[in-house]
C-alpha cells in the first residue's frame, strides 16, 4: 500500500474511531459499561426492550427511582435494571432486574461473591435462589432470583430479609 492508500486508511479509520470514541463518552461519564444504555423513563425502557414493566411501578409506592437508575441492554437478551431507594430510609437500596432468558445479562447485574445461598420456596411450586453477597465496599446485600416462563427476575437489596421476601410476594401476586 502506497502513501496515498495509507493516508486514506488514516483519514477514514481515524474518522470512524473518533466517532466511536465520541459515542462512548455518555456511557463513560455515567459509568455505564458497553452495551448498556441509560433510559430517562420506564416508558423508554419498555420501548427499547419490548418488556412490560407495569408491575415494577407498583413498587414505587414505597421506593423511588435513583438518578440514572434505569438501565437496559439488548444483548444477549433484552433486560432492564431499576435502581431504587426506600422513601422512609434512603440508605435502603433496591435494584430490580428483569429480562428475557434464564439469566440477567452480566453487563447489567454484576456478579458478586456470595458466601451463603439457600433455596426459597415460592407460590405455585416455584422456587428462588437467595444469596448473601459481599459488595466491594464490604457491605452485605441479599440477592434473590427466580424464573417465570421465559423471563428471569432478580432483586438485590440491602434491607431486611423479611422485606425482600415481601417484595417478591408482591411482584408474584401482581403477576397476571
Amino acid at each position, binding site marked *: 500500500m502506497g502513501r496515498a492508500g495509507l493516508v*486514506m486508511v488514516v483519514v477514514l479509520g481515524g474518522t470512524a474511531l473518533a466517532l*466511536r470514541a465520541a459515542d462512548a463518552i*455518555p456511557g463513560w461519564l455515567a459509568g455505564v459499561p458497553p452495551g448498556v444504555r441509560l433510559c430517562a423513563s420506564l416508558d423508554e425502557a419498555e420501548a*427499547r426492550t419490548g418488556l412490560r*414493566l407495569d408491575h415494577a411501578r407498583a413498587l414505587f409506592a414505597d421506593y423511588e427511582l435513583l438518578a440514572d437508575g434505569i438501565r437496559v441492554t*439488548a444483548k444477549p437478551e433484552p433486560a432492564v435494571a431499576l435502581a431504587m431507594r426506600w422513601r422512609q430510609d434512603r440508605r435502603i437500596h433496591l435494584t430490580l432486574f428483569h429480562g428475557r432468558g434464564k439469566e440477567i445479562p452480566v453487563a447489567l447485574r454484576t456478579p458478586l461473591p456470595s458466601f451463603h445461598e439457600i433455596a426459597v420456596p415460592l407460590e405455585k411450586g416455584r422456587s428462588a435462589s437467595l444469596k448473601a453477597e459481599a459488595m466491594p465496599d464490604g457491605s452485605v446485600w441479599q440477592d434473590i432470583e427466580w424464573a417465570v416462563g421465559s423471563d428471569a427476575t432478580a432483586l438485590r437489596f440491602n434491607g431486611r430479609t423479611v422485606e425482600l421476601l415481601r417484595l417478591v410476594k408482591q411482584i408474584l401476586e401482581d403477576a*397476571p
Partner: protein
Amino acid sequence: MFSAITKQIPPGNRMGELAAETILHGIVAATATLVFLRLRHVHAAKIRLRFWLLALGCPVLLTPVFSLLAPFRRGEIFRDERAIFSGSHFANLQWQSVRLGVAWVAILAVVGTALFLRDLIPFAWDVTRSRAKQNEATAPPAALTSAVNRAAEALGISAPRLLVRATKQPILICRGLRRPTIVSSTGLVESLAPDELEAAVAHEMVHAARRDPALGWGLMLARGLFFFNPAIQLVARAAVQEIEQRADAAAVHALDNAQPLVRGLRKMAGIDPERPGTGGWQVLRLHAIERRCRALLDERGASQPTPSRWGFVALAVGLGVILFFTVA
C-alpha cells in the same frame, strides 16, 4: 408477569433531527476532507475544489437521501447495535437541567446562522448598491479594451460581454448565470498598471469561461438552505476561495507571470505590504486575498503529487459509509 409490547419511541421532530444530522455529517465530512488535503499536501486549487464540493455534498445531498431511503436508521436497534455514533446516546446528559445534546446543536446552529449572515449582509448590500448604479454605465476605456483583448488571446477564448461603470471605486467582477458579464469601473482602469489590469481581467475571464458565477450561486443557495449549518458555511467559503485560486492559477498560467496579478489583487484590496495588519470588518477578506497572493507566489503547488480520481472516489465512498452509520 411481563409481556412483550410493540410500542415504539415517539419519532419526535423529524425535521429537527434531520437538521441536526446535516450539522453532524457536515462536521464529519469537512474534518475528514481537511485532514485528507493536509496529509496529501494538495495545493492545486482545482483539485481542492473537487474535494470541498464532496464535503459539501455529503450533508446537502447524502443526508436527506439517507433519511428518505433508510428510515430504519432512526430505529433504536440500528442506533444501539449498528451505528458507530448516535446522538440519542447523549439524550440523558444534563448539566443544571440543560440537555447537553440539544444545547450543543443549538450553539452550532447559532454559529452557522452568524456565519451565513456575516457574508449575506455585505453581499446583499453590494447587490443593492450595484443595482442602484446600473444607469452609470459608460463606454469601456481603451486601456481596458486592450487588456481584455490581450487576455482573451493569451487564454485562447473569446472576450465576454463587458460593462463599465463611471465611478472612482475600483470594481472588477464576473456575474451572470446564463451569459457571464465582466463588470468593471473607470476607477479600476485608473488605479492599475496595464499589466496588472490585463492579469486581473484574465482572472475574471477565466471565471466567465468556466461559468463560475453559476457555481457561486449554487454555493450561495446551499448556504441559504442550510443557513444554520456551520460546516456548510465554512466549506462553501473554502470552495469559493478555491474557485478564486483556480481562476488565479489559470490566468497566471496563460500570462506566464504571477507578479502583475499579485500586485493588482493587493492594490484592489488596499493591502499595503509595508503595513500589514489592517483591522476592522475587512480583515478576513484581506486575509483571504493575501493567502491567494501567497499561493500564487508559492511554487510548491506544481511539484506536489495530486490525488488520483480513485483517491477521490475512495474518499467519497468511505465517507458515505461512515455517514450512513452516523445518526444524530
